[in-house]
């Protein structure tokens, strides 16, 4: 198994054949798709495509479970925002009224549109995180020629996040070993405890800054001066080659995006009025 940013993927997964740049490109471009698509069925289709891609990549689909609460809370917020706090709009079509709250068709429609815009964006991010190893992200960044210091800071930040999590676990285990149990304690108590965790976590990170710095300097890394202008060989890139299918995937993503824009703004495709689902729903509710 190989560890990705969001779990594990089997070593035999076809996703590893794809150049990391293509995965990053996919994230950056496909995340934009829902911004130009208002008809929810198209965004649902995009979600299905993403789920299919995750399945093909042999991602553990239980990873998606982590985001179920996110999806639910997001849906709840949208319902509150669009439907329960919709205000009074005589220009809209009223479909229901309860407890003083007026429910308008336009607000219900907009809530559905927004929700099914957000979900594929989240899925795109989840797909990227669950199929990319930390090294892949570095390689993608180096491929697009981001300065080495940027990619290195990113790599060290990831490493640091892992260490902070480990430190957090150690501090909690030490407390539990001394009989501390926060079960049943009030929120205020838990927040106070959390503050007490933050202090040693910060202190540990400060100490680490000195150690990391010494290690980097001892191995000839410099941020300023002549040593910083050395041309780096980017050895890590030698393990990755941009193959013909990477070019094909990049082209497919680019062409899809251009086609989407063309159809959206040239022919008004993917608009609310064109949505079969929304028209059907409107007929039911009205």
């Amino acid at each position, binding site marked *: 198994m190989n560890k990705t940013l969001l779990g594990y993927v089997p070593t035999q997964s076809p996703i590893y054949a794809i150049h990391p740049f293509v995965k990053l490109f996919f994230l950056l471009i496909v995340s934009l798709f829902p911004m130009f698509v208002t008809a929810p069925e198209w965004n649902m289709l995009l979600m299905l495509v993403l789920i299919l891609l995750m399945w093909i990549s042999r991602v553990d689909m239980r990873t998606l479970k982590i985001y179920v609460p996110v999806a639910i809370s997001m849906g709840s917020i949208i319902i509150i925002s669009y439907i329960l706090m919709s205000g009074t709009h005589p220009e809209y079509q009223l479909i229901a009224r309860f407890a003083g709250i007026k429910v308008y068709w336009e607000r219900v429609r907009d809530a559905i549109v927004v929700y099914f815009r957000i979900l594929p964006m989240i899925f795109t991010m989840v797909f990227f995180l669950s199929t990319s190893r930390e090294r892949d992200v570095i390689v993608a960044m180096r491929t697009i020629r981001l300065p080495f210091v940027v990619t290195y800071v990113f790599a060290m930040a990831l490493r640091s996040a892992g260490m902070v999590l480990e430190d957090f676990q150690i501090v909690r285990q030490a407390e539990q070993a001394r009989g501390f149990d926060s079960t049943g304690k009030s929120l205020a108590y838990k927040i106070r405890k959390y503050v007490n965790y933050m202090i040693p976590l910060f202190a540990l990170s400060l100490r680490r800054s000195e150690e990391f710095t*010494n*290690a980097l300097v001892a191995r*000839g890394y410099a941020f300023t001066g002549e040593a910083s202008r050395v041309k780096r060989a980017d050895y890590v890139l030698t393990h990755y080659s941009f193959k013909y299918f990477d070019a094909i995937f990049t082209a497919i993503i680019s062409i899809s995006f251009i086609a989407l824009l063309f159809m959206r703004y040239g022919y008004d495709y993917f608009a609310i009025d064109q949505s079969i689902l929304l028209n059907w729903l409107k007929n039911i509710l009205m």
Partner: protein
Amino acid sequence: MSVIIEIKDYSWQYMNTRQAALNDINVQVKEGMFVGIIGANGSGKTTLAYSLNGLIPGQYNGIKHGEVLIYGKEVEEYKSGELQKFTGMVFSDPEAQFTAMTVEDELVFGLENLGMSIPEIRERLEWVTELTGLETMLLKPPYELSGGQKQRVALAAVLAMTPKLLILDEPTTMLDPVSRRRVFEVLAKLKQEQNNTIIVIEHNLENLIPLADRMILLSDSRLILEDETQQFFQNMELISQEGIYPPGALQFFYELKKAGKISDTLPVTLPDASKQLKQLFD
């Protein structure tokens, strides 16, 4: 053999401290030597090590007196990154030295800093992984390895840069006895095959003594004893007073000498001790 390290009347005091960490240190180290530095905690060993590769005063604020010359040049005169081309340092906590995602990236980092080409990196990588036995671990995250493996990675990452001067600050502190021996086996190989100048700060003397040509004892920021290893350990009373515990065999013979049972030079290694014991019985 030429002198590559020359420390003259060197003192260092960290900012916001009341006492100097090092006082009036005078040391010369010749090329190809293996030097062991011992002393109680807080005696100034790490400060001395940091002074040799430019971390002091480069990364630390403080007050410096005297000179620290590496290859005839004061450490402060080297441009950033220049001194590190021929001095390498391994720290006691391997985890604190890892910033890369894989062992291979960790080993290659220093080589890229030197501006080496890909074929050169490839060759150097092959050499150092064979030397340190890391061939099967290249794609693993370094922080997921065992303690001994981590320290081998830390050592390999520095060795890959083929420093002429190698400084190791308590490299085996966090290791079990087997891993400790493995590290010293690598150092022994280096001493034999590469003729590096090696300086090791250690508490555990069992593995250090057989390799060290000279020993230095620091106490309370001062250098109180320096000599060839064999001669060094004839000063057992002073060494014991400083809270240093030499190997059991050496201590055993010291007790015999104190009791007047032997008058010979104390043996510093196990084979020497074994030989001397046989002679005693014969």
